[in-house]
Every structure is written in C-alpha cells, then in structure tokens.
C-alpha cells in the first residue's frame, strides 16, 4: 500500500477549481477514560442528528461546508489501553490530523499524550500532519490536576494546536475541530501556491486558538 496515494482531493465537477472537496483522516489518541469517543460523538451529534452511527461509536464522518472548500472529516477513534500502544502506529498511517486528548483531572493522561506525540513525530514530518492537544473534561474544573497553562505551554513548545474542551457540556468541541480544519486548509493553500513552509502559518493559528482559550477562561 502506498501512503501518498490516499487521495484527499476530489474536485467537485460542478464548481471545479473553485470549491474543492477535501477528505481528511483525523485520528483520536488518548487514554481509555479521557473521553475521546464522547468528544467525537458530541461533535458529530451536534450538527447531524440523523447521520449518527447507530451501533458503533468509533468511526465518524462529518462534512463541513466552508466558504473556500468542503471538508469531510473521517474521525478514527483508537483503543487507548496501554497494552495496545505498540500496535497503534497502524492507526495513524496516512492520517492528516491527530487529536491528542487528555483528561484535565488526571495528570497521567497528559504524560501518555506526550508519549503519543513522540510516536507521531517518529512517523511524520512536522508539516505532514496537524496535531492538536485537547484537554477534555473542563466541566470537572473542581478536580483539575493539569493547569490550562501547563497544556498550553507544552503545545506551544511543540507547535501544536491547543484547546480545553468539555464533551459533556459541549464546550469548545466544535471549535477544536474547526481550528484543525482551518489549519489543514491553510496548509493546502500553501502547498498550492508553493509558499514558504507551513511553520510560520502554524504559529498564526496557534495564536488564534490561544486567544480563544483565553476568552473562555474569563
């Protein structure tokens, strides 16, 4: 199998060139109890109640109609148990984005997220994949073990998108996926116009997401 072959671009013939459709594979990584599935479930459920998978809760698709393009997310949930860590690399083959989810009430889960990040770094070049660090369960603020700043700081040093969410109270769930979508589109445009490497742009996005996080904390 060839990884580069995964065609993510299917030009929409009716509006060719103007309104392309992109298919992006997003993997969810994180410990068992951090709420990966709930996050995806909440994201998909909010917009399209009818397209909800009836039995499974581990593979979702979500279509976003943006101004510049149509994006179809394929969200792959992964098994978070530690014993499956060694086989996880099979999941993120050919992924375009990864969400590293941790539980803000459990410090250990952030450490595991860091482990996954090193795995991803081994597999991908920095501009091949968009990685977002997501601190979930802000509804349990009373039991918080990981300060927002800690996650934020870590994300900044590694050049990741960052956001704190709550799948339960639907806090910033849409936003994080939207941020990923924007980042992916940005990179797509850069690739198309062959501009400077995406590092710089990534920083811009980082800035935006930080601002948003800030707002919400207030």
């Amino acid at each position, binding site marked *: 199998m060839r990884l580069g072959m995964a065609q993510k671009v299917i030009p929409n*013939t009716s509006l060719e060139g103007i309104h392309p*459709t992109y298919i992006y594979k997003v993997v969810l990584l994180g410990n068992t109890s951090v709420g990966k599935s709930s996050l995806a479930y909440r994201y998909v459920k909010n917009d399209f109640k009818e397209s909800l998978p009836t039995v499974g809760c*581990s593979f979702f698709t979500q279509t976003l109609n943006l101004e510049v393009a149509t994006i179809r997310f394929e969200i792959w949930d992964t098994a978070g148990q530690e014993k499956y860590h060694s086989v996880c690399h099979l999941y993120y083959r050919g992924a375009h984005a990864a969400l590293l989810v941790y539980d803000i009430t459990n410090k250990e889960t952030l450490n595991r997220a860091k482990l996954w990040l090193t795995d991803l770094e081994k597999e991908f070049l920095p501009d091949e994949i968009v990685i977002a660090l997501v601190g979930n369960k802000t509804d349990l603020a009373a039991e918080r073990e990981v300060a927002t700043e800690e996650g934020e700081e870590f994300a900044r040093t590694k050049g990741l998108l960052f956001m704190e969410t709550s799948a339960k109270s639907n806090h910033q769930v849409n936003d994080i996926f939207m941020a990923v979508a924007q980042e992916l589109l940005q990179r797509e445009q850069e690739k198309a116009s062959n501009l400077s490497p995406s590092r710089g742009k990534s920083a811009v996005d980082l800035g935006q997401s930080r601002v948003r996080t800030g707002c919400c904390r207030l």
Partner: protein
Amino acid sequence: MNIKKQHCHGCRPSRPADESQRDGGSYGAEQRQALPLLPQQFPEVVPLNVGGMYFTTRLSTLRRYEDTMLAAMFSGRHYIPTDAEGRYFIDRDGTYFGDILNFLRSGDLPPRERVRSVYKEAQYYSIGPLLDNLEDVQPLKGEKVRQAFLGLMPYYKDHLERIIEIAKLRAMQRKARFAKLKVCVFKEEMPITPYECPHFNSLRFERSESETKLFEHHCEVDVSFGPWEAVADVYDLLHCIVTDLSDRGITVDHQCIGVCDKHLINHYYCKRPIYEFKITWWLQREEEEAYASSQSTQGAQSLTFSKFEEKKTNEKTRKVTTVKKFFTASSRTGAKKVAQEKIVKQGQLGRERNADNILRDLKEIFTPSWELASPTEEIQEAKAPSPSINRQASIETDRVSKEFIEFLKTYHKPGQDIYKQCKLFLDTMNHKRDLSIEEQSECAQDFYQNVAEKLQTRWKAPPEKVEKAMDQIEKYIMTRQYKYVFCPETTDDEKKDLAVQKRIRALHWVTPQMLCVPVNEEIPEVSDMVVKAITDIIEMDSKRVPRDKLACITKCSKHIFNAIKITKNEPASADDFLPTLIYIVLKGNPPRLQSNIQYITRFCNPSRLMTGEDGYYFTNLCCAVAFIEKLDAQSLNLSQEDFDRFMTGQASPKKQESDSFSPDVCLGVKQMYKNLDLLSQLNERQERIVNEAKKLEKDLIDWTDGVTKEVQDIVEKYPLEIEPKNQALAAIDSENVENDKLPPPLQPQVYAG
C-alpha cells in the same frame, strides 16, 4: 550416471533392418542343424530374437546367474524354438531386453527413466540380482520410501480406485468428457474449539465420548484422505495421488476450492481443505499436447541436469526461479512440482498460442472493441493459460467479465476506453509475473490511480460515478489476477499464515476476561452476534476481490458493535471494539489471515483502504493481528510464569466458580445449572403452596367446628318445645268470640227439576 547412459546408448537393441544382413546368413544354417538335438546344445555366441528384435550375446552371459529364467532356458534342458534365421526366439517385447543383457554382461544398470520398465522385465525373467540392484536406485528407492508413507494411509489404493470409478460413472452418466470429484485431504485433526489441546505428542484430542460423536463427521466429499502422522504433508499426498493416477494414464488436475464449512457445534466449523479433482477421460488436441508435455516433465524428475538446462533456456526467464526451487529441498516440493508442471505446460502451449494471439491482435485492430469483448472470447481467454484451469473459477471469471461489460455500457465512450485500459493492464501484468509481488502491487496501484484520474479529468465523471466505476474495475481485474497474486510462491505469506494460525491455536486458553472484552456471551442475542461475527471473518478467505474481503471485515465489525451494544447498553467505543475484535479473531482463527491482509494491502484500491469505514475496520484487523503476534503475559494481566505454563500447555486457566460462569463452559452445563436453579425455586414455591393448603384445610375444619359449636350453644340456650297441633287450632277459634254470631253454615239442598 553419465557413464551408465553411454552404455545404454551403446546397447540399444538394433532394429531387424540393419542386423538381418550382417547376422542373418552366418548363423542360419548351423542352427537348423542343432534343432533336433536333445538336450539342446548352444553355440558359444547365441543369436537371439526377442519379439522381433535381434540380440547377440555369449552363452555364459545368459547363464550368469542361476535361478534366472534365462539361465534355465539356456541350460540345455529346455527346447527353444528358432526363427527362420535360426535365432533363438523369445516371445516377448524386446524393448528393454538390451538393458537386461547389459546387466548380465557387466552389471550396468539402466538410466533412470528406464528403471521402472526394466524392473518389470527383470521380474519376468526373474533376475534376482538385477531386481535387488534396481530397487536400490532412483526412482524405485524413492518409490519404496513413498510407499512407506502411503502405507500409513489405510485405504490409499482403495481410494484411488474409488476416485477412478466415480469419475468414470459420473462422466458416463452425464455423457461428458470429464468428471469432477471433491476430495478432502487433511493431515491432522484440528482442534474443534480453541479450548481444546491435543494430547502431548499425538494428534488426538481430549474429548469425551459424546463430544467425539458430535465432532465426528464426514465432509461432503467423494473421497477423504487423512489424518496421518508423518512429516509428509498435504501437498506431498496430493502429489502422490496425482502421480499414481497419471501412472495409470489418467489425466487429472486438482485445485483447492476452499475448506469444508460443515457446522459442528456453536460457531465451530470443520475447516478441512477440499480439493477438486478434474479427471478428463478423453483429451482434445491441445490438451493431449499439454498432457504429453506434463508427462515428459514427470520424466524430467529423472532427467539429468543438462536436460534441465535445455528446458530452462527454452522457457522464459521467470521459470528459472521455479527450476531453482525444484532443486532445493523443501517439504513443499510436491506443490512446487505441480506448479512446475503447470508452467511447463504453459510454456509448451505458449508457442502454439502465439500465432493465435497475433491473429487476435490483428483482428482487434480491425474490429471495434465491443465485438471482441463477446463472452466467448472471454472464456477463451480465461482458458488460455492452461486448458485445465479450474472450471468453477473460470465460470466466475466469465460472469464477472459479462457484468463488467454490461456495466461499462452505461458509461458509453469512456466505458470502451476503460475496457481497453483494463485489457492492456492485464496483458502487462501477464508479462510481469516474474517481478516481485511488491512491484506487481505497485503496477496495480499505478493503474488504479491513472484510471481514477482519467475518469475525473478526462471524462468528467462525478465522484460517485468514479467510485462505482473503480469498484467494478477492481472486481474485474482482481478476479482475474487472484490466482497469480494471492499468496504467491515468491513470498513467505504462506509461512506467515501458518505461524499466525499456530500462534492462535497456542493461545486457545485466552478468555474474554483476560482481554477485558465487554461482551457477555450468556445473553443469547450477544452470543448470536459473536457467532455471526466469527462466520463473517472466516468467510473473508472465500472472496476473491479485495473489496469483497473488506466487506466481510466490515460486516464482522458491525456484528461486534451490536454485541457490545447489547451487553453494555451504549454504543461501543474503540476501547471496547479492538479487544472484542481480537477475541473474535482468536476464537475464529480465520484461514490464511496474513495472506488475506497482504493481498488486500497490495491490491485494494488505496483510496478505500486509507479512508472510509472499510479502511477503518481493516486497520483494526491489522492491529488485532499485530497484537496477537506480540501478545505477552502483561497484556493479559497474567504473571509471566502463568503465561508460560498456559502457552506450553502445562496448565489451563482455572474455570471460575459456579456462580459466575466463564463463557467457555459448555452451554449445556450452563443450561443445566439454570434449570436446577429454576427447579429449586419451584420446589420452594410448591412447599409454600402445600403449607398454605394445609393451613386452609385447618381453617376450614376450625370454621365448621366453630359453627357447629355455636349452633349447639344456641340450641342449648333456647330448647325447642313442640306443642300439640289441635290444641293450638282450637285456641285460635276459641279466641274468636264473633264466631257465634255467624249464621249457620249452608246445607246442601236437592231440587227436583
């Protein structure tokens, strides 16, 4: 070997034509005189006529070994007739007599390819030393070894007869040229359930009598070989069958058509491999040639290396690898030999067909592609590589081709183009068989990409239509390519398959609890789903198109999700799904797992594999297999010692106490415990009812007693006094004083009139 060969050439029996002139006159007169003498006197040099072939040898040569027929014949005790020329006549085919003479002369043995025939002749002339010598060289020595193996098969010979008999009857019944039989060949008894393990050092399983009965079945085949305890494997036996049949002049082709899917118990299936034997009773010209060449290749087993070299240069490069393999010792030689034969057949046919191909190509230039694409041509094409190709497969190929053409017709002009492209691709692939499988995969992927791009850009097809077309193209191409690229000999896929299979079998003791599988098989619906999932994953192997295989995985996954959902009452997440899938794979032990994964990875349309639901489930299956391969004590929450003991079969995990059954306990036992529970409950209830009834009875008795007593009390209190009746009436009247004032009662009077 070479020396012997030269000898052999030297001693070739000469034809009467060249010998008669030289020998004819000289001996003639002399011998006629010797005729009436008894006991017969023989000259020092004896002229012989063996069935019309002339030989000359010394008398001492013929008498070399006592107790042989020749020594006895020429001892002088017997009369031997002479022919017109005065040569001593032996009424037997003389083809191999020269070899006999050579042995008597110098002890030389015939070349390998003549050994069998000479052996027969030596038996006729009862030349013991030659027989002994021949038995000690190839191929007879090998034959002895082979017979030692076949001796393990109690009814081997009978089975062969049976195969021939059935094939004859079937062909006659149908007035057909060939007949097909299903033959099951299995080396060992497989464990029926993953929880069974064989007795140490044997193929038998610990099974209770009732279980044995339950698992014992006869696959629905005509003949069944096995099991046997030997190193030789299924391929070796198949080779034996084919050689023995063709020794009898029977043209036979065989092909594995799958495994026996006979349902045994719960979700356990028989899974013994089934081969289809096609026996052709009379051959068409093409086949006759192929058969002749295959016969000569069988002879080639005994050919010298130089002859092989000749053959090798005759054939195309790709065959070189096979020839090489032919010489490397391997347990799979049987299979390879068969493959070798096939290839040689193709080679021989190749030249024949070349002319046909040119003709066809010419035709292609002048006729529109649609006409060429008629089904008959398709069949022809499907048959081309080997006339004896599996019929069932070719029927399917044919059907797929027809469907494909029908489908393309809806695409009009691009459809024709697509068809041409596919044809071109298949042709190229045919020329690229000698490339590594990775390179072939690369070609296929390139092809998919090119066609998809063309569909999008040149023919402006909408995405859904592209996807549909790509599916059809994949189906068409891969049905044809399957037999070449699935588990190809150039890879170690088969070895990996066996390794995984063995590994899964070794892990038979793993329970759902160890894997933390969130599925409760005690719920009937759940166990139903589990069975369905296992069936789906096993079914994957029977599909030929990668996408159909993917569909099986997806179906299996859906059933797993259902099982989890019913158990947990909420949709399953990936954390639940992967362990359950692993459990299903462990329980099902699907056949040729690695081959299937590799095949899908190499030849599936990549856009399906990297994205979409199918791709997701496929990735999960890959994870499951990778996990099973790496599985260790830690991942099952066991101590290393326990894990080792379970793996080596020294112990098996303790069954849990009766209050919480592990799901591997026999369903019957579980049902029994349930019934016992129910019975004890009923018993309790019955007792309660009896008690109540007794109480009620007592109450009733008490009540009657009470009533009686009360009545008596009342009776006692108010005793009944009965007064005389008249007195009472008089009293009534006496009280009525007005009575006296009444007129007297009317008297009846009689009137005359």
